[in-house]
């Protein structure tokens, strides 16, 4: 196992990044419209680059790739706060469908014909049985809505989704409702396992968010002059950025380790670290941008909101540390 990126992974990154550079330039304008998701971009990503079927085996028309490749895609999507349902459809819902072997549905996802969502609160922790269908992400753009009742996965064709005004405007959440006679049984599913898998991969998205915040702040402090010097020449700023860099370096190692190992310790470690690092780097990005960082017109707030929302998603850092206690010999 390596914690470095393979040449194939770098190729995939370039393909995704080039597309996003070209097409994902108006997130700020888009999030205030009726459709915050960029479904045209999603179509291109899922069909032309094939990201929708990355985790789906070749027998169902997917690429049969590993979570390592999905992690690279998530890093890039995080870097652009790209409003596409990759994480909710191609990671979380796909993992649930893989568990029950729902071949027909997986084939539709793999080709990019359909998008799915797992109607479990995005704020649910992998360490507790979640309840309710509020705070669900990605269901508003899903053709296939899945729910879990008593450890059984169902498809609910007639599901309704009511969006709420969301902290993360690039991945809004809503409440899913459906009638009791309105569901198709797909099979038994290990929901904590699915959420844990999601948590392991979410660390890569958090890494991408943190990397954008760090790089954008570095670019800014090199060109912003006060006292006739770039503000990035002051030690008070430099030392802060050196510490942030070191946090991001370690977030990269943690993210790579999580998608390579997928073990409970690797997952909990990556979430406990990366979730906080993304928030911390985004917060410092706002601060180090000074006045402009507090304005609506500067995109850094989109990253802060994404970072804060994903800090809570799929277990808070505290939930993951609590889980580590018994795994590493630090129980009370």
């Amino acid at each position, binding site marked *: 196992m390596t914690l470095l990126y393979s040449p194939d992974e770098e190729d995939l990154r370039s393909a995704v990044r080039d597309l996003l550079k070209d097409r994902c330039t108006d997130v700020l304008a888009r999030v205030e419209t009726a459709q915050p998701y960029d479904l045209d971009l999603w179509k291109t990503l899922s069909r032309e680059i094939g990201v929708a079927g990355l985790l789906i085996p070749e027998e169902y028309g997917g690429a049969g790739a590993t979570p390592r490749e999905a992690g690279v895609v998530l890093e890039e999507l995080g870097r652009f706060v790209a409003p596409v349902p990759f994480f909710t459809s191609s990671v979380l819902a796909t993992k649930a469908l893989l568990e029950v072997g729902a071949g027909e549905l997986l084939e539709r996802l793999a080709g990019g014909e359909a998008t799915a969502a797992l109607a479990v609160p995005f704020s649910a922790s992998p360490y507790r049985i979640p309840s309710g269908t509020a705070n669900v992400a990605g269901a508003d753009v899903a053709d296939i809505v899945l729910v879990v009742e008593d450890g059984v996965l169902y498809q609910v064709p007639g599901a309704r989704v009511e969006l709420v005004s969301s902290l993360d405007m690039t991945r809004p959440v809503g409440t899913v409702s459906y009638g009791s006679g309105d569901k198709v049984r797909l099979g038994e599913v290990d929901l904590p396992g699915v959420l844990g898998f999601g948590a392991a991969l979410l660390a890569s998205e958090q890494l991408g968010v943190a990397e954008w915040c760090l790089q954008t702040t570095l670019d800014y402090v090199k060109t912003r002059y006060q006292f006739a010097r770039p503000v990035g020449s002051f030690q008070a700023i430099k030392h802060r950025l050196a510490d942030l860099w070191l946090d991001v370096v370690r977030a990269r190692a*943690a993210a790579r380790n999580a998608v390579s190992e997928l073990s409970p310790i690797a997952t909990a470690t990556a979430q406990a670290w990366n979730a906080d690092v993304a928030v911390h780097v985004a917060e410092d990005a706002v601060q180090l941008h000074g006045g402009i960082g507090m304005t609506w017109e500067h995109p850094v707030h989109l990253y802060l909101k994404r970072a804060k929302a994903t800090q809570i998603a799929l277990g808070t850092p505290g939930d993951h540390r609590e889980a580590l206690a018994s795994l590493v010999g630090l129980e009370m």
Partner: protein
Amino acid sequence: MDVVDDFLRDHPADDRLEFLRARFDAGLAWVHFPEGLGGRGWSRDLQQEVDEAFKGTPQLDFGVQAIGLGMAAPTILAFGTEEQKRRFLRPLWTGEEIWCQLFSEPGAGSDLATLATRAVRDGDEWVVDGQKVWTSGAHHARWAILVARTDPDVPKHRGLTYFVCDMHAPGVEVRPLRQITGEAEFNEVFLTGVRLGDDLRLGQVGDGWRVAQTTLMNERVAIGGNPVRRGGGMMGPVLDAWREHPEHRSHDLQQRLLKIWVEAEVTRLSGVRLREQLAVGQPGPEGSGMKLSFAKLNQELSGIEVELNRDLGYDDWSFRRSESVDFFGRGPGYRYLRAKGNSIEGGTSEILRNIVSERVLGLPSEPRVDKDVPWKDLPR
């Protein structure tokens, strides 16, 4: 590993020194070094496999040899003449000759380039006068790596030259320097009219700063070299104390320990990643980052360990000589106090943040008042 198996079949390990010499001569010492100098020109990442295959055979003493192996050797390899490499590397590796480092001075710590120890040319020799400090292991050392000022009339970085110093030469005086732990691991070294042959110069006259950078990069990697095992390093004794003393546990300590466990683990993983990158080529300034994390972790962990033990004692304050550099030895109180040095030795954490921000992140340096001024005119 076949080559190691063949070697072990032909070389019984009855005599420790003979065994190590033979291992060096077989090119199985540091395999990324060139043939004839203890290596085979292999990739660095094969070293671990080779070391693994030599398990159970006579080993090096890293506590005493650390400076030789981690700093002197890579510098000699990069800048030494063929003769110097042949003369020094073998006994350095086998531990027959111990090395120390004569860099820091009372007036030159973070600002190492301002150092004042003078080396004046006298025919084929150099005459060295000055005072060095923070010299670990000088009392064991046969040789030292030394940076001295050979030209006071040019700006400070340009007037330095790098030497190998004979620690047995007349005029070298080593005095123990007692530290906050009570013991004397370090020394101050007084150099009075010490005569060094020009064949002990490493690199060009006036090029000492560049040569020293190689040493310092390697030092930071050596100090920041992280435990490969999860829960290793300074985490080990803390986890032991947690397991052995359930009566001392508290929610507060548990929360803090879990946080630092995560930080130690992601730092370890970065170390693994950095080593993968190092497998090709030389350590870059990224190594400075590992040393920063290592210092912070050791200090926090050792502090928590003292709290966790709830013991107000200290094992021994008596003034004694340390046999080797040891961050982990003795009790929790010693570890706590010794770890304070981790953010000072090998570049303070503040200097390392400057290095990271300038060399890795490309941020501009602070305005410098000393850059173009001849060293002799600098305020000191």
